[in-house]
């Protein structure tokens, strides 16, 4: 599959977005992942989200680490710059890229090996700093490229394809992101595009550290009975707390929901999240309650999905650093070099 070139022709009546682009303009190369891989569904959801938001593809920077999930940026947004960096180090590379040019959209794609094991520290610290980004973990509980070893998100007691029972405790990426101060936290399932696409759209519009933990079954190594990351298991244990309709600020908001079941959440940039509540008690603005809710349901074997937390007035790293509005990579000598007169003064003070 690696060397197959994707045909460029398409149906002339394919729907176009505001920029005049079709879906095809948001695609990348042909995926080299296994047929049926959950990651390919996430790729499709990213394409859908960017198409629907009418994002200029080249204004997105796709950055990943190493692993199956980290290969996927090659399979979407072919007109974007991509960076398949170092195992577990996507967050730092993305942070640097973001500091250099605050005007692009930063899409970080990682896996559970990449983010929960080797890159756990970097994941933690970019969340703490509030880097303006969408951080997607394509979470399958195993190391696929190296043939099915448990990852750190594999649940205790779950069984590997070879029948080995995992005795280590699992890391709950969403729970950790909440604790670390991510200003947008969601969990979804690669098998549920209707839930995932609006979450990705909302995360892109969110001006802060947005984290989406997407359970994405590995058809080759983790889709068997005894796995807690299989398609069947996730479907049976999925406990969605809400469903999101994402509405950008420029569009009229029409509310045709039954009263009391929908909450309109306005984000900092003016976009609105129409949140259809499935669990009437769940409050997406209460970080502590969200953490407790996750833990409580995890103990019962349930996988809580949906928008788990959003901070409407999120701040990002650039705000904290008080950087100029112009991207730093556009500044030249005039802005950056203090010149010889200043240097003379500095010399004089050093005598």
């Amino acid at each position: 599959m690696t060397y197959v070139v994707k045909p460029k022709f398409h149906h002339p009546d394919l729907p176009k977005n505001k920029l005049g682009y079709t879906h095809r303009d948001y695609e990348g190369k042909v995926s080299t992942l296994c047929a049926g891989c959950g990651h390919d569904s996430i790729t499709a959801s990213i394409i859908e989200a960017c198409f629907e938001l009418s994002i200029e593809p080249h204004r997105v920077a796709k950055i990943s680490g190493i692993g199956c999930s980290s290969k996927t940026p090659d399979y979407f947004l072919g007109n974007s710059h991509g960076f398949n960096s170092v195992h577990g180090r996507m967050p730092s590379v993305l942070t640097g890229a973001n500091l250099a040019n605050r005007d692009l959209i930063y899409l970080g794609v990682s896996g559970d090996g990449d983010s929960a094991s080797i890159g756990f520290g970097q994941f933690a610290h970019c969340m703490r700093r509030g880097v303006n980004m969408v951080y997607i973990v394509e979470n399958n509980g195993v190391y696929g490229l190296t043939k099915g070893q448990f990852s750190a998100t594999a649940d205790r007691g779950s069984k590997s394809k070879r029948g080995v029972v995992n005795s280590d405790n699992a890391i709950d990426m969403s729970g950790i992101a909440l604790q670390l101060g991510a200003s947008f936290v969601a969990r979804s399932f690669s098998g549920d595009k209707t839930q995932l696409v609006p979450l990705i759209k909302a995360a892109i519009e969110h001006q802060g550290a947005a984290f989406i933990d997407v359970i994405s079954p590995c058809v080759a190594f983790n889709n068997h009975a005894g796995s807690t990351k299989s398609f069947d298991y996730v479907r049976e244990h999925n406990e969605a707390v809400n469903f999101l309709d994402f509405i950008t600020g420029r569009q009229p908001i029409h509310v045709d929901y039954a009263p009391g079941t929908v909450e309109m959440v306005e984000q900092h940039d003016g976009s609105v999240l129409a949140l259809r509540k499935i669990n009437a008690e769940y409050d997406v603005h209460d970080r502590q309650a969200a953490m407790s809710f996750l833990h409580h349901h995890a103990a019962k074997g349930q996988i809580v999905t949906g928008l788990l937390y959003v901070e409407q007035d999120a701040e990002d790293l650039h705000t904290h650093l008080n950087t100029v509005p112009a991207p730093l990579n556009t500044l030249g000598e005039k802005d950056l070099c203090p010149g010889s007169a200043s240097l003379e003064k500095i010399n004089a003070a050093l005598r």
Partner: protein
Amino acid sequence: MPSPSALSSVNDFVIRFANVNGSGSASANELFARSVLRMGVPVSPRNIFPSNIQGLPTWYEVRVSGEGHLGARGGIDMMVAMNPQTWDKDVASIEPGGYLLYDSTKPLPKSKFRDDINVIGVPLTAITNSTYTDPRQRQLFKNIIYLGALSALLDVDPKVIEQLISEQYKGKEKLLSSNVHALHLGRDYALQNLKCPIGLRVQKSDKVGDRIFIEGNSAAALGAVYGGATVCAWYPITPSSSLADAFTSHCKRLRHDPETKKAKYAIVQGEDELASIGIVIGAGWNGARAFTATSGPGISLMQEFIGLSYFAEIPAVIMDVQRAGPSTGMPTRTQQCDIISTAYASHGDTKHVLLFPEDPAEAFEMAAQAFDLADRLQTTIFLMLDLDIGMNHRLCRPLKWDDARQYDRGKIMTAEMLDAGRDFGRYLDVDGDGVPFRTYPGTHPTKGSFFTRGTSRDRYARYTEEGPAYQDNMQRLLRKFETAKDLVPRPLQANADKPTKYGVIYFGSTSPAMDEAIGLLEARGHRLDRLRVRAFPFHSSVASFIAEHDFVYVVEQNRDSQLRSLIVNECSIDPVRLVPILHYDGTPITARFIAGAIGDHLDALKITPLRKVVS
């Protein structure tokens, strides 16, 4: 009671202050160094300090040299012994005929002194206790009081010290007057009770000129500001932390928009060295000038990313302030021991550009140049400082900047060039210099995007594991390294006044000691041509210099003669032609050491070997 052998010297001596870390002595000691400097006499001070915050011994050594020798000299002519912990060692280290200044408040047994040195007692504790009640004041002013006593003993102009104090405490009149008062308490005691001046004296001179007094780390950080660095990511590690701190304070002064007060820079303290270099590489990939400052252990941690920068061709600048390794080694001691670990950093076949500044002035210039080189060559550039240059004030020529100078951003393909139909292959060698064009992310809606990866790819950045395509790329990287040879600072050669068969190669902070050693060697009848290497890859003049001499000494501050290994390997030199001269005990190399080692080696050549007795 000076002994008959009392050392006598004007503007040429070494004084060492033995203190306790955290006792506030550093500013008083620095004040001493600056006051000598203000009298027009060159000094080179050095901090000798432990990896500790408070309580352990620390020393501050000032070499006063009217001749202008700035390297460490070795030997101590006067000891200001303020630390009972190190008393015995400190007293023992004084040259015969030298001087010992101590706190004589409490009588010490005769056995604590030496007969062959001149002992000068000042009851510092008694003076401070009778003047001050606050314990912290007692501690701080005690330092200023011994400075006052020294001004009388060494004939340092008190007006000069007062002027420096008034500059330091400008606007804080209370602190100013209390410091001046303390200064005179000590000075008056010495004038009334001791024979002043002693044999060692400071006399006004004009040998300082317009030179400035600055730490290498601060100068390098200023070079980064002038060189256009906008992103700095770093993790604290001695002796490089003060470089990032200096960058922060320079930026606060020089890089804020005057109206909006917004910052034209971003500084992030990373969670570790891996994150720091990751941030630098992400920023470099996205078109900002970015750097990190670190030391040997940080270099070890950054290896994987450095390989990515080499192979994916992303600009980065790493300022390595070297300290004694391996492992944690001696974190507060100097060495030049990261030459190999930077030159060949990371797995696989890699080579990197290294710059070797000799002093703060060159650290400033090379730091700024490093960003041009990184953009031009699209790879990591190492600025190789060390603790001796980085953390000590050094007298050097004033910093200069040409306002007409423009940043060299390297080969950037713009949207206009793409629209004009230019063929863009990210790894395509269009000019034959091995350097391809790159595009910044976000340049063009449909052209010029590419996927950056550490895996192998073809000229158009498409993934491939084909052998010929891989080799083609690796060969181009070698061509690029050849291109670098003519872009980096060239070696500087200084020949002896008469032809000689012998040469010496040295680099970095060894410079002042080497210059001085040449004079010492000439006095022993040995002449040497010298070549100061300023960068790796080596310019062709390095190999020709070696070819022109019978053999060449390579002077460096590490155990394994790392620069020599690099020369042997990269210039295909017969190792026997390069004689290693190695100093690696963590102290800065001295002229005495170099002249001794080379002199003895050359002397030995003159000795006719004994014939074996045939039985």
